């Protein structure tokens, strides 16, 4: 299966994605990396707010860069349809016990339409569904950047999986992504969370090793109840409907012809007179006499007259 790029990535937008991802990653993991006794740890309570403002700004900048000149009307239309679908699905799932069908849309959409599209699709889906279900809060920027990574990852897989086993492999990726997403999301509030037992809590200045192991335990003991159902739902759903949804998305992408760039060339050098000669004149247009007259069509199914030109529409619904 050849790779589709609904949103082609230029060198500049690749750099922007990379920069945003680095800042986004820092926004999640900075407490773990802070060296022992660092001044910076005094900001543990207001840092999420700072990043909460910084990340959406960067994300907006990146999305506009990615979209610049490359995101055509067709990609926007498809983005809108998928975002609306995921928002409607979120209303269905309502996030109970982590059952969020939105990930099916993001993973399959990104896989069918490419990495650039996936990086945009993730945050837009999250934003649309958050607006619909009232899920707007300081966590939203973190959810958006993490969803962008899930989409980017699925998009990068496109064209690299053997077609025979792509659905199971995608299901495996989505299982991993669903758990990783949950664990990353824990990080944005975990350092400031209070009232946790010591073995689960963030210890300012205790060094990366201790904190990473505490975070690990925290994930296993608290959020796994959300992460596992989310992973299971996404995995099972992709196994069940993945092939059909992918076929529909690929058909949409084939009809949209994302990779077909408009090309203009000069007309061949011959004169206009030659062109008029080449066009069929009235004499050469098949007249009705050549075709069977309307009233006398042989009325045997097998003997139906073939049309003068085949009915097949070589480029339907252009």
């Amino acid at each position, binding site marked *: 299966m050849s790779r589709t790029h609904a949103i082609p990535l230029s060198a500049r937008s690749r750099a922007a994605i990379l920069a945003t991802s680095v800042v986004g990653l820092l926004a999640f993991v900075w407490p773990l990396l802070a060296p022992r006794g660092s001044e910076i740890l005094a900001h543990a309570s207001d840092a999420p707010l700072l990043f909460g403002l910084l990340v959406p700004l960067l994300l907006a900048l990146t999305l506009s860069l990615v979209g610049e000149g490359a995101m*055509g*009307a*067709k990609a926007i239309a498809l983005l809108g349809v998928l975002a609306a679908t995921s928002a409607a699905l979120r209303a269905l799932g309502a996030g109970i016990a982590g059952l969020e069908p939105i990930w099916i849309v993001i993973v399959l959409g990104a896989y069918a339409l490419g990495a650039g599209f996936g990086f945009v699709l993730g945050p837009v889906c999250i934003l649309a569904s958050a607006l619909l279900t009232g899920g707007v809060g300081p966590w939203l920027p973190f959810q958006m950047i993490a969803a962008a990574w899930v989409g980017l990852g699925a998009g990068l897989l496109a064209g690299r999986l053997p077609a025979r086993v792509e659905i199971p492999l995608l299901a495996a990726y989505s299982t991993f992504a669903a758990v990783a997403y949950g664990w990353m999301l824990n990080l944005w509030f975990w350092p400031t969370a209070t009232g946790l037992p010591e073995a689960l809590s963030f210890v300012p200045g205790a060094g990366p090793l201790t904190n990473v192991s505490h975070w690990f335990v925290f994930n296993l003991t608290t959020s796994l109840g959300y992460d596992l159902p989310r992973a299971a739902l996404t995995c099972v759903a992709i196994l069940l409907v993945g092939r*059909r949804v992918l*076929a529909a998305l690929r*058909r949409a992408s084939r*009809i949209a*012809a994302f*990779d*077909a*760039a*408009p*090309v*203009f*060339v*000069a*007309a*061949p050098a011959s004169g*206009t007179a030659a*062109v*008029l000669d*080449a*066009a*069929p*004149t*009235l*004499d050469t*247009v*098949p*007249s*009705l006499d050549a*075709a069977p*007259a*309307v*009233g*006398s*069509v*042989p*009325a*045997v*199914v*097998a003997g*139906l*007259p*073939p*049309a*003068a*030109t*085949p*009915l*097949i*529409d*070589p*480029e*339907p*619904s*252009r």
Partner: protein
Amino acid sequence: MTSAVRFEDVSVTYDGADRPTLHRVTLDIPEGELVLVVGETGSGKSTLLRCLNGLVPHFTGGTLSGRVTVAGRDTRTHPPRELADIVGLVGQDPLAGFVAEIVEDELAYGMECLGIAPDTMRRRVEETLDLLGLADLRNRPLTALSGGQRQRVAIGAALTSHPRILVLDEPTSALDPGAAEEVLAALQRLVHDLGITVVMAEHRLERVVQYADQVLVVSGGQVTTGTPAAMMAGAPVAPPVVELGRLAGWDPLPLSVRDARRAAGPLRAQLRALPPPADPTPAAVEPRTTEDPESGRIRVRRLRAGYRSVPVLREVDLEVERGEVLALMGRNGAGKSTLLSVMAGMRPADAGTVRMGGADPVTLKGHALLSTVGLVPQEPADLLYATTVGRECGDADASARAAVGTTAGILSALAPGIDASRHPRDLSEGQRLALALAVVLAASPTILLLDEPTRGLDYGAKRRLIAFLRTVRRAGHTVVLATHDVELVAEVASRVAVIADGEIVADGATGTVVRSSPLFAPQVAKILTPGPWLTVGEVADALQESG
């Protein structure tokens, strides 16, 4: 005279296509003309139209060689957004193109996109409402409009940005004759009162050819242009009035019923001496003695059906014998589709009885239903839900308990050469209809119901449908078709029933019913009345027999 549109040696090749869709097209459309684009499905008509506002190749991709100039702007350097103020495009299905919910908002939407000042928008919306006779509908939801009203709103929405060129893709194909008249009258007014250039593709030539100043015939990607009379003289597709003119050798070739009628005096006199055409009702349906005598018969008595507050059918009595082809006619909303769905067992009757081949269709299940009555709905895609044509055929074989390959066989007889791996929704209208027909016919139902079968079909597909329906009738199937297409009725129907306001107001042999109606009479009947002739084929046969 200035050109509105110039094509200079234009070829278009889509990505992955091995030959150009348009090949070396050179043409010139002067300002203020009404230009008709004619050609079979897949001939390159839509590509030609979409070159006019730059959608080809800016949106679709592909290679364009040569130059397209629209009102002096070259489409190489002007993408669609920079042509939006001079070209308005109206698609085939207006509902698919609507953005807003109500009429006024839809009219203003295009102007909002172009950043036009609010007071100008307000004025232009008012002007457009008056121009197209939409003032009474201004606050109506778009979904509550009739087909003709929707098409006029779509034209209005394109007009509010004051384009110099209006491009329409099959604006009347899906409309009943009255609604088509509405739309064509509005277009006439735009051309004559405002000097707008109109470029229109249309299969229903009999409706539009007399209004055209220039005709472009697109065939296999090549384009020939000329005056309507010159192009019709040699065109592969022509409306009945032109075919009759060609048969009788009239010169100049008439394009309207009025012109033809004035030229037809001698032909009428000649035909008066000839015997009338044979009654098309087949006497030769061989009685199958082994079968139930009720097989293939329709009995509808005192039928009431519809919605709780709005009865659609009030009191319908209808009897159809085996082997008849009954055409149901009447304006949109008269109850034709409701009657068909009751007959197909999809909707229960509120009162009265319905017997299809002796059984109540609502009580029939599974294979018993499929082999008794089959309905091809107005939108054939409603029957199709598999992802490929091949799978669709396989499913149909299985549910019809027919031998593997039955459906595919019927399909290839109806529309040869469809790739089995294609998606049913990617097919052309004619191919989709053929597939839906094949799916229904796999179970060999004794009664076949068709709802608007010629919507969106080109002449070639329609000719094959007509031949096919004759075969079906000869094989002893009963056919009921709901249609606006008077020419189709003249060709295949043995009987016509006219429904109005939920009741059958006329029922009789095709000739008797349609000849007397100004709306339902085919063109040949209008020209040759009071003679009994309905189709060019009948006239040709009669002339041939007399030598």
